[in-house]
């Protein structure tokens, strides 16, 4: 048991280090500008006075490391600074939207993970059948579709008939079941985008194992094919499956940006796109940091889980 905690501790430290590096990159990116941020935002025609005022407002007069430490200190205390466009505290802007985005990502995950695992096991079971070939072609196709194409097809098909709303309005009084109903189309879009990849990888992980002698043995015992796959192949295929699921969940987090814009979903992605349009750099930095942290965290969890499910990795000498 000690081994597990030591391993988790090591991974957490590595994750923290990654997060630190990411925060440096996100903060340092503004330093890439040839002039400085104030000049870039105001353009060439700015007077020295307005430039100086904006520099003062953005705190650009301090050297970069000091500014970074100030920013980091604020972030660690939940203070992301003030939005340049709306003059509101960023924490306030982000607060409710973070919940909405997480809700959407979790909703899509709840739909896509069981679906893709089930389809993957079936494709492995009936490999080289018509079902398998069709699923292969569909997987390649759905990976190639832009998210907004899938989203608009769904709108055309399901929202046109009035079955589901094509716009999502979430207020404080929206109940959970209303959220499920209104979020269905965005969640379905995300599901369609990620399911194919997860399903193919599940299939590949299982088929890799089917040639092993112990599977042969299980077959010779007279076990049914489904039982062979579920009892003997799946537990050993868990590590790669967990990894691909995590990878796709991480993809969901970035994929929400486009989908949120299509469905006017009040989440972080929409906020980020608006902020990029207005060149509201503090907001973009804050949201980028949040998305990147979620990405790192998911990969961390996947890493730990896939180690725990593999006894050989747990008892490595």
């Amino acid at each position, binding site marked *: 048991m000690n081994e597990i905690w030591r391993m988790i501790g090591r991974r957490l430290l590595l994750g923290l280090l990654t997060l630190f590096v990411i925060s440096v990159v996100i903060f340092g990116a503004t330093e890439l500008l040839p002039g400085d941020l104030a000049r870039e935002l105001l353009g060439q025609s700015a007077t020295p006075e307005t430039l100086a005022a904006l520099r003062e407002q953005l705190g650009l007069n301090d050297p970069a490391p000091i500014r970074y430490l100030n920013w980091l200190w604020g972030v660690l205390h939940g203070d992301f600074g003030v939005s340049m466009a709306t003059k509101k505290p960023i924490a306030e802007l982000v607060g409710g939207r973070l919940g909405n985005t997480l809700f959407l990502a979790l909703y899509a995950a709840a739909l896509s993970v069981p679906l893709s695992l089930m389809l993957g096991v079936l494709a492995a079971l009936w490999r080289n059948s018509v079902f398998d070939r069709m699923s292969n*072609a569909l997987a390649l196709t759905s990976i190639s579709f*832009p998210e907004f194409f899938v989203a608009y097809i769904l709108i055309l098909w399901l929202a*046109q008939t009035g079955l589901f709303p094509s716009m999502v309005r979430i207020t404080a009084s929206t109940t959970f079941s209303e959220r499920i109903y209104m979020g269905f189309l965005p969640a379905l879009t995300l599901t369609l985008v990620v399911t194919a990849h997860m399903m193919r990888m599940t299939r590949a992980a299982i088929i890799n194992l089917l040639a092993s002698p112990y599977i042969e043995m299980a077959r010779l015992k007279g076990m049914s094919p489904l039982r062979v796959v579920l009892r003997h192949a799946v537990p050993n295929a868990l590590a790669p499956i967990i990894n691909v699921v995590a990878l796709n969940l991480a993809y969901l987090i*970035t994929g929400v940006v486009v989908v949120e814009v299509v469905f006017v979903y009040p989440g972080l992605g929409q906020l980020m796109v608006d902020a*990029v349009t207005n060149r509201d750099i503090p907001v*973009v930095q804050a949201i980028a940091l949040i998305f990147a942290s979620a990405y790192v965290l998911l990969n961390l969890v996947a890493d730990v889980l896939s180690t725990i499910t593999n006894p050989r990795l747990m008892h490595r000498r």
Partner: protein
Amino acid sequence: MQVLVVLAVALVAFFGVALVSRAALRTFAPAHQKPTFRDMPLTASFGIAVILIYVLVAVFAPLLAPFKESEVVGAQYLPWAAPYYLGTDKLGRDMLTRLIYGARNTVGIAFATTALAFTVGSILGIWAALVGGWLDQWLSRFVDALMAIPALIFSLLLLTIFGTSVLSLILVIASVDATRVYRLARSVAQGIVVMDYIEAARLRGEGKWRLIRREILPNAMAPLVAEFGLRFCFVFLSISALSFLGLGIKPPTADWGSMVRENATLITFGDITPLLPAGAIALLTVAVNFVVDWQLHRASGLKE
């Protein structure tokens, strides 16, 4: 019911194009290439045909398009009728014309971006593998740090800082994607630089640049070409996504991503016109994926 009809038409079109193109490839291929095409899957021949059509449309866009790229030719949102075969958009520009020019702009920009990402990424990657030591360490750790941030999010951050223009779009996407190419090129080159013939070339006194160009690159070509296809798909999709978000290629330049955005309101009225540019993006990506899939399958000798 409608869905079924659309699916049936799509299937028939797929098999028609695929069979014709496979027959054509078999007939017109030079003798030594014939075995390559003999047992190519239908998906691959379909992909090749579609890519060829896109290239032709992009090259001959001014000849094929009935109107000028951003010419206002009539009222807005006209229905599908001659001479506006696919109707007009929200400013009254001809949809078909803009679709045709979009092939040139969107695909051209995506191709240029991929080529840039590839040149930078693969040269740096091979160079790092060849030189090794602290340079390799620093470059690789730097790339690792950049790759820890999701690509779309990082592109959005860079676009905020550098502003949204076509040039910054190309540079931003190319640099984000170059990190992925760097990883692959470095790992492929690492297997090559330890070969005896590289040792021999070094002893002959060949310079670094010549080593990369004449000795390593030709042997690293196969995986890099397959990666080029996949990378193109990713770049193409992210450029379309950014243009769709209003952060990429800007009007009046005809571009598929922004065309979807501009005319999206039509969809809520049940008009499929805005889906055409989105479909054009999807079709090309599918086609490239099919061809890459076939190439990878052939190269690895995998028979499932």
